[in-house]
C-alpha cells in the first residue's frame, strides 16, 4: 500500500475527523426523525420536551396506515422475486453469452438507474392509462420492477462473473445435465448474490415514492405515498413514527445482507 494509515501521523486524525463528520451528516436526518417520533410534542419541537410512544399507538390504531404498509410489503416482495428471476436470466446471458454487443446491452440494463425517475413515472403513467393498470397492484409491480431490475442485474452479474464456469463444466462432466448443474452447483454458489439482489430489489420498491405517487389510487397506496399524502394534510408526529418504521426495516435488511456477506467470505 502506498498510503499506510498507521504512518500518516497527525494527518490520520484529520481523516478520522472527516469520516466522522460524513457519518454524522448521513445519519442526522435519520436520528432526527427517530427522535421526533418518540417526542411528546404535537408540533414536532426539537429537542423533544418529553418522550412518548403515543404516535406509534396512533399509527397502529389506524387501519389505513397498516394497510398501506401491507401493500408496500406485498408489492416489494413480488418485485424482489420477479427481479431476481429476470435479473438471473439477464445476467446469465450477459456473462456466459458470446454474442456481440454484450457490453452495450449491460449498460442499457442500467439506464433506469440514471434516468430521472419522474420521466419514467410520466411515461409509465401515460402507458398504463391506455391499458388500465394505474391504481392496480400489477401496475405498481411493473413500475417498481423497472427501477429494481438494474440492482438485480448488477449484483447477479458480478456474482456470476466471480463464479468460475469451469466449476459448472465439472458438474456436467460428473454427469449432471446443464440445467441440473446450474440448479445444484451454480445457484448455490452465487446464493449470496441472489440474496443481495433480492434485498436491493425489495428496498428499491419499499421506499420508492415518485413512481408510487403516479401509480397510486385513493384505495391503493404504498407506505411512502401514505406518508406523503398525510404530510400534505397535516403535520403530525405519526408521520415520523411511520418513517422510522420504514427506515427500520430498511436498516434491518441491509444488516442482514452484511451479515450474510461476512458469513460466505469466512
Amino acid at each position, binding site marked *: 500500500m502506498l498510503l499506510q494509515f498507521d504512518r500518516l501521523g497527525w494527518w490520520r486524525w484529520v481523516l478520522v475527523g472527516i469520516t466522522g463528520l460524513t457519518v454524522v451528516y448521513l445519519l442526522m436526518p435519520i436520528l432526527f426523525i427517530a427522535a421526533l417520533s418518540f417526542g411528546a410534542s404535537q408540533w414536532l419541537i426539537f429537542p423533544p420536551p418529553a418522550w412518548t410512544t403515543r404516535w406509534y399507538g396512533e399509527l397502529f390504531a389506524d387501519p389505513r396506515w397498516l394497510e398501506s404498509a401491507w401493500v408496500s410489503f406485498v408489492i416489494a416482495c413480488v418485485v424482489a422475486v420477479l427481479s431476481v428471476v429476470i435479473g438471473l436470466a439477464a445476467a446469465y446471458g450477459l456473462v456466459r453469452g458470446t454474442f456481440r454487443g454484450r457490453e452495450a446491452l449491460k449498460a442499457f440494463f442500467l439506464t433506469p438507474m440514471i434516468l430521472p425517475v419522474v420521466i419514467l413515472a410520466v411515461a409509465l403513467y401515460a402507458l398504463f392509462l391506455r391499458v388500465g393498470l394505474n391504481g392496480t397492484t400489477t401496475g405498481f409491480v411493473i413500475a417498481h420492477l423497472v427501477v429494481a431490475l438494474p440492482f438485480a442485474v448488477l449484483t447477479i452479474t458480478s456474482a456470476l462473473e466471480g463464479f468460475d464456469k469451469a466449476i459448472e463444466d*465439472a458438474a456436467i462432466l460428473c454427469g449432471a445435465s446443464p440445467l441440473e448443474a446450474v440448479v445444484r452447483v451454480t445457484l448455490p454458489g452465487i446464493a449470496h448474490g441472489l440474496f443481495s439482489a433480492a434485498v436491493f430489489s425489495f428496498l428499491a420498491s419499499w421506499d420508492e415514492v415518485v413512481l408510487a405517487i403516479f401509480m397510486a389510487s385513493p384505495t391503493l397506496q404504498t407506505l411512502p405515498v401514505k406518508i406523503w399524502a398525510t404530510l400534505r394534510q397535516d403535520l403530525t408526529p405519526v408521520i415520523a413514527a411511520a418513517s422510522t418504521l420504514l427506515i427500520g426495516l430498511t436498516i434491518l435488511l441491509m444488516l442482514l445482507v452484511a451479515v450474510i456477506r461476512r458469513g460466505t467470505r469466512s
Partner: protein
Amino acid sequence: MTEPYLEIDGIRREFGPVVAVEAVRLTIQRGEFMTFLGPSGSGKSTTLYILAGLDVPTAGDIRLEGRSLLSTPPQHRQIGMVFQRYTLFPHLTVAENVAFPLVVRRRPRAEIDAKVKAMLRLVRLEGFEDRKPAQMSGGQQQRVALARALVYDPPVLLMDEPLSALDKKLREEIQFEIRRIHQETGVTILYVTHDQEEALRLSDRIAVFSKGVIDQVGTGEELYAHPTTRFVAGFIGDSDFLTATVTAAEKGRADLKLGDDVIVRGVPIHGDPGRPGAKASLMLRPERIDVATAPSSAVDGDRAALPATVEDITFLGASIHLAARTAWGEAVAVRLPYGHPAAAGLARGQSIGLGFEPAAAHCFL
C-alpha cells in the same frame, strides 16, 4: 499393437480466424498414460475439451472402442476430468463433492457412502470428509477433484495441467500419487502439461504438440534419442543447434559442412535435403559432447570434432556447464559430469576441441 481404444481422428478446431487445433491424429491404448506436452497455445487444452465434450471440433472425429463420441453430450460420455483451476463445488463438503457424480446418477445411499470412502482412501484424504473446499490446500483440493473424477469408474480420465498451480515439492508428491492411482485403477489417462520433466516422469507415451498439430508421439526415451523434428529436439531435453550446409545425403544420413571447413559425415537426417547445398541445423545434446584440451578439427576415428574456445565455466554440483564458442562464432553449451578428466584443467579463453559421435547427432532441415 492391440486394437485402438481411443482414437482422435484428424480433429480441427477454429475460433474465427484462429486455428487452435489444425489436424490432431492420435491412437491411445486401453490403460495407457498419454501426456500432451507442448508450449502455451499449442492446442492441448482445446483437444482435451473436445474429448470431454465441452467443445466441438470444426472437423474430424473421436472414437472410443470404435464408436464416435461426438453425438454424445458431455454428461453422458462418462469421461472424468480434472481441471487446471480449482473446480470443487464450494458449497459442498469434500465427501459431498466426491459423492456428486453418484448422487446425480441416483445410486443407492449405501453404495455412495462405500465408494466415497474408498475414493478418499485412494487419494489419501480420509478424515477430511466434512471439510469445505475453502478449508483445503491447493494440493488437497486437486486430490479431491481427482477422487470426484474417478468415483464413477470412468474409462478415460482427462487432466488439464492439474498441478500447475502447486509448488514444486507438492507437485512431485502428487505426481507420485497419480502414478500409483493409475497403476491401481488401470484407468486410461490423458494428461496435459507444459513441464517436460512432469511428462517424462508420468507418461507411458508423450505426444508433443506444436502450433495445433502433434509433432511426434513416443516414449520419453524415443523422443529424447530420436526426435524427428527440430521442435521436438529443442523441447525435450537440452540441445545445441548449429547451422550447417548439406554437402551430400543418402539413405537418411548426411554429410554436413560447418563453418568454413569442418566436415561431419554420417549424421541422421530428418526431412528432404533436396539438392546438396541446402541449409540445415545440426543438433547435439550438451551431455554427449566430449572435450579435448587440444584444438582439433581432424576426424578421429568415427568421431567429429569442432574447434572452439571456452567462454565460461559453471560448477553445478553433479555436472559442470561449459559455455563454448566455435571458431566461426556459434555458441555451444556442453555438460560434463563432475570429475570428468577434461574439466580439471579448463580455463576461460582456452582453445578446445568439441568431440561427438555423428550417429548420435541429428540434422534437421
